[in-house]
């Protein structure tokens, strides 16, 4: 996999710095950053092909593939029939022949028909063939809630993917990671499930390159307790850390970025530094990523922990209708309440 990518593409409508390159300070949305990552990957490598539903002239329902069909042609940005297993199955065959397909699943819950292709073939092909046949496929999945979507449009499905050996699972929480991690995913020789937090599609920041897949990052240092999170919950955790200052608490915030491979070293170090940890994610808690993180942290930091690792997650319910989702999603208040329960009394 490659971390050494260069940002060359300028999202449409942005002023240019030097030639193709955006000025360093130019802020773009995450949608534009993802679009730029696709565009730069398509330019840099003729084997990269985008395919999915509505990715052509429409540019995808979130416009992440905007303008790609016009620049690279309908063969390299292919509008497919509406069938997710067929899309991924076709991408597998394309990858067998040496292409690097980038598949768009239109929404989290619409990816489920492709699970058999993903779990039985994409994840296993390298292993099944003794390393002879790897499948460098990127599967982009807009995921998570908080955007007022009606049912089947707001699932957090990361645990399904992370539980399947053979897949890499990454999720950006910043514009920069949106660009950098997507380029790294497409350049990876392994299949990558690339989870895009819908709620952060319209956040803006400068476009820049970032770390390779597999590294967590400390977004905020702190001394009191450590919040471990990823994707759409990162801004909520940062807001909670800011609010906690009022109570005299100094919270660290770790952005996992990559669920598989999991960065045990960064996470363990960040928890040992404070002795207290709360995991925060939108997905339901039972059997979720938070359970895995709590177990790993306990195994590695047990004698440095002052309190059990707590979790703030979505409730164990089907994703609620949009008028009720604010009660389901981790909030600043729920995070602060969890922090308050970290056995501060000596």
């Amino acid at each position, binding site marked *: 996999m490659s971390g050494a990518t260069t940002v060359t593409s300028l999202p449409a409508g942005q002023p240019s710095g030097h030639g193709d390159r955006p000025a360093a300070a130019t802020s773009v949305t995450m949608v534009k950053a993802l679009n730029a990552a696709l565009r730069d990957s398509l330019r840099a490598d*003729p084997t990269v092909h985008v395919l999915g539903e509505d990715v052509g002239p429409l540019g995808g329902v979130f416009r992440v593939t905007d303008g790609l069909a016009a620049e690279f042609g309908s063969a390299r940005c292919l509008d497919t029939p509406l069938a997710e297993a067929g899309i*991924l199955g076709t991408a597998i065959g394309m990858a067998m*022949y040496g292409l690097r397909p980038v598949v768009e699943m239109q929404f989290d819950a619409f990816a489920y028909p492709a699970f058999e*292709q993903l779990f039985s073939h994409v994840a296993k092909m390298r292993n099944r063939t003794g390393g002879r046949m*790897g499948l460098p496929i990127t599967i982009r999945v807009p995921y998570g809630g908080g955007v007022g979507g009606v049912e089947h449009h707001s699932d957090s499905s990361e645990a399904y993917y992370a539980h399947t050996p053979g897949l890499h699972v990454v999720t950006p929480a910043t514009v920069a990671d949106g660009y950098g991690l997507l380029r790294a995913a497409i350049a990876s020789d392994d299949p990558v499930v690339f989870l895009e937090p819908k709620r952060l599609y319209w956040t803006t920041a400068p476009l820049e390159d970032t770390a390779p897949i597999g590294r967590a990052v400390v977004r905020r240092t702190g001394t009191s307790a450590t919040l471990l999170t990823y994707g759409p919950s990162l801004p909520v955790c940062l807001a909670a850390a800011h609010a906690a200052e009022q109570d005299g608490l100094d919270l660290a915030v770790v952005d996992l970025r990559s669920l598989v491979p999991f960065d045990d070293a960064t996470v363990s170090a960040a928890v040992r530094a404070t002795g207290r940890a709360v995991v925060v994610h939108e997905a339901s808690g039972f059997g979720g990523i938070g359970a895995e993180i709590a177990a790993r942290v306990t195994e590695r930091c047990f004698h440095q922990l002052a309190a059990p690792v707590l979790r703030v997650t979505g409730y164990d319910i089907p994703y609620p209708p949009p008028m009720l989702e604010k009660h389901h999603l981790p909030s600043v208040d729920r995070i602060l309440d969890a922090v308050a329960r970290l056995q501060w009394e000596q």
Partner: protein
Amino acid sequence: MTIVHDSVPPDLVGSVGPCGPRRDPVSLLPETEPVRVLGTRAAAVGDPDLARDLYRRLLLGRRFNRQATTLTRQGRLAVYPASTGQEACQVTAAMVLAEQDWLFPSYRDTLAVVARGVRPIDALTLMRGHSHCGYDPYEHRIAPLATPLATQAAHAVGLAHAARLREASDPASAENLVALALVGDGGTSEGDFHEALNFAAVLKAPVVFLVQNNGYAISVPLAKQSAAPTLAHKAVGYGMPGRLVDGNDALAMHQVLSAAVAHARAGHGPVLVEAVTYRLEAHTNADDATRYRNAAEVELWRTRDPLTRLETHLRTAGLLDDTGAERLAAQAEELAAEIRAQFDAAPEPDPQSLFAHVYASPTSQLREQAADLAARLALDEDPDADADPDHDHDGLDRNNGSDLR
């Protein structure tokens, strides 16, 4: 060909918009009866060398099936889904492909894999329980045997589509390849079968889908599987031609499959071929076929055995005599002996191969797990070795006297 009502003026053709009819369905319809060559005049005037060659391959294929079934009884194969009775389908599917073409087999198609050149021991690693795919897919241009039904059909579409894309962008490296996907009658009920055919037709990918309709999906007969007039009729709904062929007639199989491959190679898009055949053995060695079909039915199909029918033709036409038959039988025994010898010499799997190819390079967690297994294996070799030699490096937090909070 576009269907247009006579009353619609030519300048308004297409005015029905993007949802109007686009193709004449009649030209896509399969034959009303399966194509047969054996027993017809076409057989008499056909290529005698081809007929003899086919018979030799069928005979070797039957011996392969018999040897593999014997290996299950000896416990040397974990399972074997025999293609006994379907040898004409298996052999011709491999024969009609050129070197640059790709085969996408399902779990009952080991014989087709061997017929395309894979060593029996390598084709049987899956059934042996040794490794999932024992051959190099790129060396033989054969995808791994697919157990999830019809999933491999979509892979055939993607690969054939990718090959066409390369031809368009780089004609110098054009391979003009065709992908052939093997599916069973039960597999046609899977959503992936539908999606693969639809994608193939829309993308005009050079794919031949061969459905071996052997009458049963494990125990469920075709009548409970599909209400289609024939499985070949399903092609019409996707906009590709369907062909119906006698799957126990090796000459007909070779003729129809060759035509289908030529159609796809010429750039006319995919073809669906239904071969009507019969599974003479149970689903696998673990199955009891007497629970769902009667002996009379099996006996009827034994009279339609693809080997017997071709042998009768060859002997009637003077293309095979007892001496020739004995020579072929000896070749078949040589093959069986070679398979047994390959099994005798086959290596045991390496436990460390468990971790070798999960990712292009292992994660730190997999390296830890590989080290754990290695330590356990070392302990098996030398019981005095440290049972848990890696404990200092496993990342576990231990109470080493640091202050408890």
